[in-house]
């Protein structure tokens, strides 16, 4: 069953359910040092594999960039 996720403010459709780890790999971000917020709460890295995403979930995926 198709479902939608809101990732960094963009809506993306997926054809089957997936874990946060699957998502990170599909986005090509698995090699990176990231932090993920799921529906407003920090999702610890250790929980990516066991967390299954649901229709309408909102994710923020962030990393460190140059700044003062």
């Amino acid at each position: 069953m198709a479902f939608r996720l809101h990732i960094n403010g963009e809506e993306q459709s997926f054809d089957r359910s997936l874990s946060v780890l699957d998502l990170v790999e599909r986005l090509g971000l698995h090699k990176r040092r990231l932090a993920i917020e799921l529906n407003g709460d920090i999702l610890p890295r250790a929980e990516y594999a066991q967390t299954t995403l649901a229709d309408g979930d909102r994710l923020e995926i962030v990393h460190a960039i140059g700044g003062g």
Partner: protein
Amino acid sequence: MTELAEHTTPADPLTIAGRAFESRLLVGTGKYRNLEQTRQAIEASGAEIVTVAVRRSNLGQSPDEPNLLDVIPPERYCILPNTAGCYTAKDAVRTCRMARELLDGAGLVKLEVLGDEKTLHPDIPATLEAAETLVNDGFDVMVYTSDDPIIARRLEQIGCVAIMPLAAPIGSGLGIQNKYNVLTIIENASVPVLVDAGVGTASDAAIAMELGCDGVLMNTAIAEARDPVRMAGAMRDAVRAGRNAFLAGRMPRRRYASASSPLTDLPF
């Protein structure tokens, strides 16, 4: 040679939240031409504490695209995530929580809650609110604030581990605009006071240190110099020189001359 050894400068660490640092210069990583220039400038600055920003990852990027933390590895540098771009206490707290996860639980953060885009002055009520929430949540908060001594004291009472008054607006390069307020903040504080923002050139950094600041945090003064790597070295030297001058204790100011050579036994 043994005599020389006795005269070496004693260790004078900057201690923040129980951690001792050799360098009193803290640098940002924004506005550089590329990551290689960032790496070289940070290296030349001798800084051990390096600020970064937290932003949304680009979803379309290639997996092998170089990353800031590859050139500024957290194993070597103390990474200080900032809350730049946050205009509310809520956003700043959220950013700190993301940063802590990003950095495997490291809780040292630079809190800045901005008031408006033109001045980038801190929104003080929101800064106080965010500081309180973060301290209660176990963060070690280094806080960007105005040069108001009463607010600085309040932030220390809340439990911030370093008070960081602006010298002048962020990115302005104007140097310390209110030396006497900064001096009052230093006199009152029992946590480190660092000038954060507004330094333009090496003498500005030296003046901050001569006043008795425990350190200086800067970004634009290095990154926007014609030769950032050279300026990073100049800033490293200026911070050291200013610190040594402060510790040495300057001579008194006099209105009139005081001869350096004896006034007696002149041959005429």
